[in-house]
């Protein structure tokens, strides 16, 4: 690169990062540790996040297995865990919730895919601040160390649910985890710091490192979505960090921010938490939507219907997402005037999200659809997420929510949104970009076995929970046999059905893990652009070397979705192809 760039253009970290492209060829072989654990290469950092996220998913999955077994078969000794005590039950539920959201969905959807894809898809050699990026992963790893350590301290892991409401979370007398609770908070705070650094990197990289010729409206949807999501994250996380510091003081120093006896207000925490907590839903939803956009355009060989509309609706969703958070507190004692307003905004936000779904269906319409494994996942995402969205209408109406609040209906609803986001869309992404990441193919047949083995049990877990919730089944109960009203005929059968389906679903993940790791090493070799896709990452070799584009950074001539162009013989038209 030349030094004629304006002097203020090159921050000092920036210089270090772009030092790479000069060394891309005569790059000295680093030792294993430096290459995989101390790397500033965005692809390695993406892999670090991806594999850490996968590992945490195993922990989250194990936790749900243990506590669901307790719900279905109260008092039994769970194989692989032992007897689940009431304290264990709380800790397991909390671990499952916080791990799946903060340590699986966030790192995989935002950090792993963002790090891996952003520089590749915008035609850059690396992030703008590579060392900040490395620090981000290190902080994230530290947060996991703190979290996992909290499982083994005196009193065990925190058991106050992932929402961590005071007074339960604020006082060791109530939650009985004098060490687990503050450690959980510290872990969450560290994790946020990590994503803050990552988000800063994503935004600046998209702004300042796009390949020559790439306009903002030539950027693939998934990159837009990840960047909009990181901006949402950065803008909404502040109040929760403020609340977390206050809660940490309440737990450790003895202040009374959330203690009415000392002049505090417990509902205040809920505001601070959900101010972040609801935008967080859209933080993970938008990247998932972006993945689906990439996959369905590639496999229906059609231009994305209304590219700009998708971006504007994503921005609109993001803006609206700041005005919906109090719908989590309809019966927590908030002002009814507020409940009305938030009811309306909550129902409003379904419009842009529905619009995105319509755009995807319109893209599919008339395309030559290939039902590969990633495509199956993407289609399943649209269908399953739709169910989650539609059931949200019931909960968003403040009147209906009075009945549904804290029932299994809520659980089924948000799992119908979060599972498609954090797993279905992620499986679409992982299988779609696998040839790029490893230069190998995954096994299609086993991929489809895994797909059906996940989708069918998934519905068999949560449809029973909808039924239970509609019958008033209350959540956060350790042993239903103590509640005759919740043990009416059929209710326990539905719980058992959900639990057994869960076991089946978890068992099928073994298929995926074996397929994934076997293919990564022994799979058939993949060419650079196996799906005949247009975006820039497919124009780099598979797997891309350090510096990404060995023949120099690409120049972009057109948008990312020029499939089946009438004037061309080829049905795809790579963004960097001059003609």
């Amino acid at each position: 690169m030349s030094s004629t760039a304006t002097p203020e253009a090159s921050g000092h970290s920036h210089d270090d990062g772009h030092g790479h492209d000069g060394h891309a060829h005569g790059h000295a072989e680093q030792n294993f540790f430096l290459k995989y654990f101390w790397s500033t290469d965005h692809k390695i950092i993406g892999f670090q996040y991806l594999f850490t996220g996968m590992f945490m998913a195993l922990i989250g999955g194990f936790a749900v297995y243990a506590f669901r077994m307790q719900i279905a078969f109260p008092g039994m000794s769970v194989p692989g865990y032992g007897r689940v005590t009431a304290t264990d039950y709380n800790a397991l539920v909390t671990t499952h919730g916080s791990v799946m959201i903060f340590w699986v969905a966030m790192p995989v959807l935002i950090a792993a895919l963002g790090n891996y894809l952003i520089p590749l898809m915008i035609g850059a050699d690396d992030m703008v601040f590579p060392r900040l990026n490395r620090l981000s992963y290190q902080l994230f790893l530290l947060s996991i160390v703190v979290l996992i350590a909290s499982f083994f301290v005196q009193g065990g892991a925190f058991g106050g649910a992932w929402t961590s409401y005071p007074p339960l979370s604020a006082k060791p007398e109530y939650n009985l985890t004098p060490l687990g609770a503050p450690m959980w908070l510290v872990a969450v705070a560290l994790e946020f710091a990590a994503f803050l650094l990552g988000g800063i990197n994503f935004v600046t990289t998209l702004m300042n490192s796009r390949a020559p010729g790439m306009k903002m409206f030539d950027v693939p949807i998934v990159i837009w979505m990840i960047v909009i999501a990181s901006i949402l994250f950065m803008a909404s996380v502040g109040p929760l960090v403020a609340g977390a510091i206050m809660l940490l003081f309440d737990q450790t120093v003895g202040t009374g921010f959330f203690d009415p006896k000392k002049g505090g207000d417990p509902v205040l925490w809920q505001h601070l938490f959900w101010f972040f907590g609801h935008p967080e839903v859209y933080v993970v939803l938008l990247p998932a939507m972006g993945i689906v956009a990439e996959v369905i355009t590639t496999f229906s060989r059609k231009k994305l219907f209304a590219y700009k509309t998708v971006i504007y609706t994503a921005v609109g969703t993001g803006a609206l997402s700041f005005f919906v958070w109090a719908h989590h507190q309809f019966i927590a004692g908030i002002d009814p005037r507020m409940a009305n307003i938030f009811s309306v905004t909550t129902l409003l936000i379904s419009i842009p999200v529905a619009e995105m779904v319509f755009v995807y269906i319109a893209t599919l319409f008339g395309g030559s659809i290939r039902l590969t494994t990633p495509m199956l996942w993407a289609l399943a995402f649209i269908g399953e997420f739709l169910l989650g969205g539609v059931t949200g209408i019931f909960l968003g109406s403040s009147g209906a929510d009075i009945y549904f609040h804290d029932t299994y209906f809520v659980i089924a609803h948000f799992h119908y949104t979060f599972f498609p986001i954090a797993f279905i869309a992620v499986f679409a992404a992982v299988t779609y970009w696998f040839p790029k990441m490893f230069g190998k193919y995954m096994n299609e047949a086993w991929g489809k076995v895994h797909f059906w083995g996940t989708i069918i049990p998934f519905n068999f877990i949560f449809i029973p929970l909808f039924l239970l919730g509609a019958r008033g089944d209350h959540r956060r109960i350790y042993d239903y046999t103590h509640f005759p009203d919740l043990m009416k005929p059929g209710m326990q059968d539905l719980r058992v059905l959900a639990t057994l389906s869960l076991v089946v679903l978890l068992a099928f993940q073994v298929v995926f893990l074996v397929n994934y790791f076997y293919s990564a090493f022994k799979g058939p070799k993949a060419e650079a652009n196996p799906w005949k896709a247009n975006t820039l990452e497919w124009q780099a070799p598979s797997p891309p070397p350090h510096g990404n584009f060995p023949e120099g950074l690409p120049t972009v001539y057109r948008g990312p979705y020029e499939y089946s162009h009438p004037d061309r013989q080829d049905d795809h038209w790579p963004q960097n192809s001059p003609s």
Partner: protein
Amino acid sequence: MLTLACAVCGGGPDPARGSYIVMSIIISLLPLAMLGGILAWVIISARAAEAAPQKTDDGGLPS
């Protein structure tokens, strides 16, 4: 106003409820205002950079 039927709604002294509403409005609008400001600044700078003579090594391509 179905929510008024709810027994737990509308607790707390009135000034606190009022300030909840005011603070909710401020805290919800603030991020949008800041992000909008940054976006406007970036767009204005981009326009200015386009108007100014090119001195980049962009290969003369529009950015």
